[in-house]
């Protein structure tokens, strides 16, 4: 035990030095105040007050976008990973690699691609007008919450596919055959045998996509317009233009805490599901 602690010490020190201390410092800053563009190291709740009053609604919207992206990614990721694992035969791995290569790739490239698809003179509007469904370009396609969600799902999907595929690889075919032998229909096999065996993969996929989406500020900046803006953009604004570090800090930590709360609640629900058996086993 002591040996283990000693062996861990160097990496712990590095982690604390480059991660924990700066984060802690930033957290302390959220209780400072700003007077004529200068940080005042005192104790004030002004920044947190500003977070709750001015940015409260936006935080909830941001969470909603994160949840939506997380859910879509997990769902699509599962469908894709399932097909690669069970429908593609021995080409599963190959299919996965091929798709990941096409799905990974420039973040900005993807955003601009969606801009040229959803924009006023973009592909989709041209097509809609071409077949005569609309006479005017549909303005709501781009610069909306929907556009942000679509682009984020597209960008984050590989991060969902990977952990789900990894956990599906561990589901043995024999358990599926056994379930069918015992009378399970296709949907019962899915819900009672496959999904329960890959819960951890589904959870990592969701957590990853949710956190990355909720913290994003580039996509809403380029595709969100006014109706699709997210908290991250305003954190940036407070830090840079407004030079209000305490507010920016309070907002970052506020969002972080809320996100952790969501993930924690989900993990608790998940482990309660798992514990039915585990607890009884010990």
């Amino acid at each position, binding site marked *: 035990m002591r040996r283990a602690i000693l062996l861990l010490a160097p990496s712990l020190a590095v982690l604390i030095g480059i991660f924990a201390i700066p984060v802690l410092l930033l957290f302390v800053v959220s209780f400072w105040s700003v007077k004529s563009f200068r940080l005042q190291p005192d104790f004030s709740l002004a920044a947190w007050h500003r977070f709750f009053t001015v940015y409260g609604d936006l935080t909830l919207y941001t969470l909603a976008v994160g949840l939506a992206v997380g859910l879509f990614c997990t769902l699509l990721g599962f469908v894709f990973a399932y097909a690669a694992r069970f429908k593609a035969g021995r080409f599963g791995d190959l299919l996965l690699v091929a798709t990941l290569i096409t799905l990974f790739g420039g973040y900005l490239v993807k955003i601009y691609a969606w801009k040229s698809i959803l924009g006023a003179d973009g592909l989709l509007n041209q097509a809609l007008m071409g077949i005569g469904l609309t006479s005017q370009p549909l303005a709501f396609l781009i610069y909306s919450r929907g556009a942000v969600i679509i682009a984020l799902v597209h960008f984050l999907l590989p991060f969902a596919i990977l952990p789900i595929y990894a956990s599906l690889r561990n589901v043995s075919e024999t358990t599926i055959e*056994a379930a069918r*032998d015992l009378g*399970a229909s296709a949907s019962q096999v899915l819900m009672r045998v496959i999904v329960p065996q890959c819960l951890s993969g589904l959870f990592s996929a969701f957590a990853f996509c949710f956190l990355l989406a909720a913290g994003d500020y580039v996509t809403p900046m380029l595709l969100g317009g006014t109706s699709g803006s997210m908290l991250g953009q305003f954190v940036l604004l407070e830090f840079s233009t407004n030079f209000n570090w305490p507010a920016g800090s309070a907002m970052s930590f506020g969002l972080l805490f809320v996100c952790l709360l969501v993930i924690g609640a989900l993990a608790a629900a998940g482990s309660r599901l798992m514990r039915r*058996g585990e607890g009884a*086993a010990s």
Partner: protein
Amino acid sequence: MTSTPLLKLSGLSKSFGAARAVEPLDLTVQAGDFCAILGPSGCGKSTLLRMIAGFIEPSSGSIAIEGRDITALGPEKRPTNMVFQSYGLFPHLTVAENVGFGLALQKKSKDEVSRRTDEALRLVRLEAFSQRMIDRLSGGQQQRVALARALIMRPKILLLDEPLAALDLKLRHQMQEELRRIHQEIGGTFIFVTHDQSEAFALANLVAVMNQGRVEQIGSPAEVYLSPATLFVADFVGETSLLAGERRQGRVTLKAGPHFASAGRDGPVRAIVRPERVGLKSDGVPAVVTDAVFFGASLKVSLRLPSDETLILRSSEADAAARYRIGERLAVGWEDQQVIDAGPG
């Protein structure tokens, strides 16, 4: 009696691409039978069993249970249940949940599920483990969970694919006893696959011997053992010695020397000699002991005959070890043999 058999396979076969895994075969199993499908690795046993279970679609032929054709039904709709070689237990469920899985799918009441789960666990003597997770069980215990999970469904036919192959010898014998006891207790119909002839003989009342996708012989263990239909069966079943010879006008002369009367076609034959029928005989065939292995209850002796063939002898006499020393020259004989046409070559 003209009642319809429980299971009837007619012309059933399976090809994977160009390769024939199972040649067209017929098999009839009556209710209450304990049927063994016996054969070497790769002969198509699993393929046959999985066709009966519904996991493999046959290339030709039909499967009928109690006269009803079920060839087109999926495994979830067949009145059969399977014990898989690798068990296929659900790792996310407890022992009791594993066993109750099939009944829970049928939307049976909680009471009934738990009552019958207890019953099934009692049958395989795992009552004390009902709340364990699967990964905390030994191999033999997992095997019994798999058995209970299939038995609880009260299948018309229980299919077992080498259920004991993964167990060590002692546990295997124990589980053979258990299987026999359970078969008698519930009076069901079992079909099990094995490559171990002693296991097949210990359990089954009906044995189908397979070789390269063909069923070579179907019969009771005694029939298969005492009058094998083909050379392959004779060789595969038991430690027999096969001695080459020639039949001329109702008389067989073995290369090793002995000759005896035997009706049949002229031509090359093989004489099948059982090791327990061989013994010392003063005017017998000269032989040299090349090997002697002690098996506790008996001694297995390999003898080289003048024809350079090997003859196996088994003796359970107390002084056997002293009598059959390696290098010893003796004269041996046997009481009776069975003769099979060997065909040219």
